[in-house]
């Protein structure tokens, strides 16, 4: 009677909606051509239909709406151009959105073309202006710098010679030259010696090579002078400010001149003629300066005009971009549809959730009505061969947990969703390894900051690391709450215990407390009401006490977690209606796990309750080695020995139970089904689908290969048997990590903070405090929380999910405007 009652009880459970993905249905749409665009955009707003590509074999440009897609691509190119220009001009693109009547795509196209034309024209104009401005500016700089060269290059030898003259002999010629120079009659001497020069300006990084090239080309018969330009000049191509160098080359001969000019051209050096006459120089400089100011004014006006035009574009840019992106998505979707035979209707197929059917029908009716179509849109369900996509409805809180599960594998359609349990168990397992309420409060503050600024942060673009933190803000919130809880149990606040829940249960033996750390304390009152007694801290048996407690706790949690996994496999099997899996997989697995590790958990609890001194290692080991021997002092309760023998036998029986029956029964079922028909595979697979769609989908192997099934089952059984040992051991990481965490924080607290505090020196104390703060922030809060996160992740993915989770589904990706992001185009 008992199993019957059990079934009844389970049937009466509320429906496990949370655990199952949405029921999906495969639908077909037949849309009249005139209302197709509107219908698709309404569906996009709804965002609940995943279209199937019916033209997969066609290349993109052979599809029906390729021209529209191309136009959209062209428009988004123009919009990108605008955005680029706006960013270059330093304007904000999305500062405000102006309310504006909805604009048509055709109008927008014309609009954009106009704007682009206008912008390009303005750009080319301002480029021209900018070029002449640059030329003038360069000319001015060359004039200024080159003059000083011309003077100094003539002046220096003269002064040298003057010294010579004073010392050795008088040279009238040189004196004359010098005086001539001073009288601003310089051209003669340079012309007389046939010495000529070219002056110009060149990019700073090219100077060295330029000089070398000149040297080679003229075989060293030249003089090269250079000076930094001082001002930075805008490079017309990259529009970056670059440093330039003014140069003056002195040379002689016509051939050298052509060579040098060619080299200048090759190096992109701009040459400007500098008159040797200083009065002329002054005149030209004045002219150039006045023209420069004129040009500057024109340039500024041009830039103002351009900025105004850009600003008017910027107001609409976001809206236009959204519009174009949506249109492109609509046409891309339309390209997935097929024309029917009459060429008047478009046929689309796709998946949608059952619950959204009425909404979709409404949207389609609206589309028909709005586009004044004579014919309605036909919307009906169809049968599909492939398995439906998996769709869980999540909210901002549950989404990160679902992501954690999906990162391992997307659930098979309608199978039990571990994310439901992950929501609580995951942060809790994390907290077991991160139990410190001081650190927990730090995490909590971080999570609260992220949550408080949710609205602001969700709109802006974050770095990849920040994005991860922000996405997991609710995970962090729960993790921090649980670690505060666990920290209170472990009684650790940055590794310091506090007497929060009353006084300690232990007291020194005498008033001097000399032997507190050697012999120990005596218990004088009721145990500490919540968590670990603060007096354990620093005592001789602190580690052995905490280790034993945390280790046993880990095993208890581990066994409970794994049992939950196996129970979920029962609900899965029940849901998919495979009694075979219940009888020959779930039952023996339960028995095997619980007869060994369930029993261990029982022993732990009994030991805790009774305060017995029994050695559990010994009990467990000798349960296998010599089950019949008497337990002696390790006996915990009456009848332990026969119980152990029974459990051991059960475990031994469970192994062949889960290994052999299932493949043989499958084989028998198979031969029964195909009796007398050796070549009926095609028929039967169809019949299967009609008769029992669920089971047919579950074992879809059309050809039954006994050895394959058997090997598969063998692998599974061995994995489970070995796994139950290794997985239980794996849960000991809860203990190990929490031990590491508390030891590390103790080290930082005692060896850094307390050590520094021991000195009566403010500097040392401050240094100690900084080191402690940084170690806490980076090592304990960041690295340790990351490692605890990863270990919790592993416990979920491997130890928990391998008991029941297939994870071979695929995600529901509806066509939705909301999911269009900027990266799409």
């Amino acid at each position, binding site marked *: 009677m008992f199993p019957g009652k059990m079934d009844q009880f389970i049937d009466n459970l509320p429906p496990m909606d949370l655990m199952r993905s949405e029921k999906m249905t495969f639908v077909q749409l037949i849309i009249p051509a005139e209302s197709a665009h509107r219908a698709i955009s309404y569906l996009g707003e709804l965002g609940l239909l995943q279209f199937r590509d019916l033209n997969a074999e066609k*290349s*993109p*440009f*052979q599809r029906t709406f*390729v021209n529209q*897609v*191309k136009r959209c*691509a*062209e428009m988004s*190119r123009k919009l*990108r*151009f605008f955005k680029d220009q706006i960013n270059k001009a330093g304007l904000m693109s999305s500062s405000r959105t102006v309310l504006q009547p909805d604009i048509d795509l055709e109008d927008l196209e014309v609009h954009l073309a106009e704007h682009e034309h206008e912008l390009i024209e303005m750009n080319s104009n301002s480029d021209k202006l900018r070029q002449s401005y640059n030329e003038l500016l360069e000319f001015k700089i060359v004039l200024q710098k080159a003059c000083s060269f011309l003077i100094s290059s003539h002046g220096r030898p003269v002064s040298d010679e003057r010294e010579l003259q004073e010392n050795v002999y008088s040279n009238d010629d040189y004196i004359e030259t010098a005086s001539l120079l001073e009288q601003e009659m310089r051209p003669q001497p340079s012309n007389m010696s046939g010495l000529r020069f070219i002056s110009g300006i060149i990019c700073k990084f090219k100077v060295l*090579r330029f000089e070398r*090239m000149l040297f*080679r*080309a003229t075989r060293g018969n030249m003089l090269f002078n250079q000076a930094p330009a001082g001002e930075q000049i805008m490079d017309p191509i990259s529009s970056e400010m670059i440093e330039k160098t003014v140069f003056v080359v002195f040379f002689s001969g016509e051939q050298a001149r052509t*060579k040098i000019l*060619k*080299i200048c*051209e*090759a*190096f*992109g050096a701009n040459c400007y003629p500098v008159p040797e006459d200083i009065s002329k120089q002054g005149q030209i400089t004045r002219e150039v300066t006045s023209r420069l100011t004129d040009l500057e004014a024109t340039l500024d006006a041009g830039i103002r005009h351009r900025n105004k035009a850009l600003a008017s574009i910027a107001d609409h840019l976001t809206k236009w971009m959204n519009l174009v992106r949506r249109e492109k998505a609509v046409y891309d979707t339309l390209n997935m549809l097929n024309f029917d035979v009459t060429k008047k209707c478009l046929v689309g197929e796709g998946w949608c959730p059952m619950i959204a059917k009425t909404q979709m029908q409404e949207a389609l009716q609206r589309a028909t009505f709005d586009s004044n179509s004579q014919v309605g849109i036909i919307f009906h369900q169809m049968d599909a061969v492939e398995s439906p996509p998996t769709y869980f409805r999540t909210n901002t809180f549950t989404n990160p947990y679902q992501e954690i599960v999906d990162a391992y594998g997307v659930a098979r359609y309608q199978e039990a969703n571990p994310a439901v349990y992950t929501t609580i168990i995951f942060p809790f397992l994390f907290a077991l390894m991160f139990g410190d309420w001081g650190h927990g409060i730090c995490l909590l503050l971080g999570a609260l900051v992220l949550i408080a600024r949710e609205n602001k942060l969700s709109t802006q673009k974050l770095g990849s690391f920040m994005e991860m933190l922000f996405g997991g803000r609710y995970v962090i919130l729960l993790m921090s709450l649980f670690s505060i809880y666990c920290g209170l149990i472990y009684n650790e606040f940055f590794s310091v215990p506090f007497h929060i829940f009353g006084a300690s249960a232990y007291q020194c033996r005498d008033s001097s407390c000399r032997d507190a750390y050697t012999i120990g304390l005596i218990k004088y009152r009721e145990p500490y009401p919540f968590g670990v007694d603060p007096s354990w801290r620093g005592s001789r048996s602190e580690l052995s006490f905490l280790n034993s407690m945390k280790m046993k706790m880990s095993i208890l949690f581990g066994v409970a977690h794994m049992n939950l996994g196996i129970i979920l496999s029962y609900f899965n099997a029940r849901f998919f209606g495979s009694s075979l899996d219940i009888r020959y997989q779930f039952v023996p697995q339960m028995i095997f796990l619980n007869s060994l590790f369930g029993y261990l958990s029982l022993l732990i609890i009994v030991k805790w309750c009774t305060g017995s001194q029994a050695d559990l290692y010994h009990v467990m080991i000798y349960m296998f080695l010599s089950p019949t021997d008497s337990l002696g002092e390790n006996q915990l309760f009456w009848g332990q020995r026969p119980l152990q023998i029974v459990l051991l036998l059960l475990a031994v029986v469970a192994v062949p139970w889960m290994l052999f029956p299932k493949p043989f029964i499958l084989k028998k079922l198979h031969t029964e089904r195909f009796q007398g028909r050796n070549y009926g595979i095609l028929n039967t697979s169809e019949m299967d689908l009609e008769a029992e769609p669920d089971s047919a989908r579950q074992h879809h192997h059309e050809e039954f290969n006994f050895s394959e099934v058997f090997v598969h089952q063998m692998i599974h059984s061995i994995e489970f048997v070995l796994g139950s040992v290794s997985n239980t051991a794996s849960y000991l990481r809860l203990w190990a990590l929490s031990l590491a965490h508390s030891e590390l924080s103790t080290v930082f607290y005692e060896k850094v903070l307390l050590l520094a505090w021991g000195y009566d020196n403010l500097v040392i104390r401050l240094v100690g405090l900084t080191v402690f703060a940084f170690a806490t922030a980076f090592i304990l809060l960041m690295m340790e929380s990351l490692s605890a996160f990863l270990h919790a992740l592993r416990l979920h993915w491997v130890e928990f999910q391998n008991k029941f989770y297939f994870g071979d589904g695929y995600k529901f990706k509806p066509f939705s405007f909301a999911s269009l992001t900027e990266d799409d185009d």
Partner: protein
Amino acid sequence: MYGFEALTFNIHGGYLEAIVRGHRAGLLTTSDYNNLCQCETLDDIKMHLSATEYGPYLQNEPSPLHTTTIVEKCTLKLVDDYKHMLCQATEPLSTFLEYITYGHMIDNVVLIVTGTLHERDVQELLEKCHPLGMFDSIATLAVAQNMRELYRLVLVDTPLAPYFSECITSEDLDDMNIEIMRNTLYKAYLEDFYRFCQKLGGATAEIMSDLLAFEADRRAVNITINSIGTELTRDDRRKLYSNFGLFYPYGHEELAVCEDIDQVRAVMEKYPPYQSIFAKLSYGESQMLDKAFYEEEVKRHCLAFEQQFHYAVFFAYMRLREQEIRNLMWISECVAQNQKSRVHDSVVFIF
């Protein structure tokens, strides 16, 4: 250490080999080419390419496209790939990668020198240069009047300098001279590259010597065919052949005396690896020879990817990409000029 590359290769070369294999997976496939060949306009080509690795490079081009834009952007992608790999490379891989570009450098030098000889605008010529073969002072080439100046002014700073030792003459530049210079440089380059690869040893040496030998032999055949009927003497012709490859040394003797295409064919058919090239060609035909060579080359380069832990994959990838760009250029030209019937004439499928 031949046979032990697997132990140490990945320390320095593993990341880049993975990168280059990833790039190779991005090469256009036969189905891509089939789709491209069906394109009606250049916009269709752009649209199809937007789904490939060329997508980001073409997406910001305004709509009336030109063949040159497509080729330019595709080359830009190749150059970006190359520069990325060069940045990540350590010795000796970085030297190996640099060797790959010397061929383009030679071509660019020849292009500029020929251009200035015919008094073209230097800027215009620079735009036509292959970006992989650019060096700093390339524009200065226009200054030089003869080989000696060319060398002394510009090329002494470039890696091409040592290759010039054989062709420094004081003669003025003319078309013939330049062509001889190109081939001499190429010969020196190939021989140097070959020696470098031999020095690297291991699978690199083995595969690269095969690829370079093919390259050298192909050049030998091309030189022979192109010099038939010109004033180039047999000895001069003989001097332009690289001193390695399957034809070296006996094939070269025979090639040097060839007077028509069928004699070349007779020489080549003595070498089993090259027999298949001529199997599809009829006698006296030299038009299709280029394509046949390209097909053979592509096949060899694809095979280079079959082995791991060697540098030849980089060489092969660059060459395959270049071939792909040549294909795209041909297809685009055919589409642009409405000559779709000729699309298949010169497209070499890579896979």
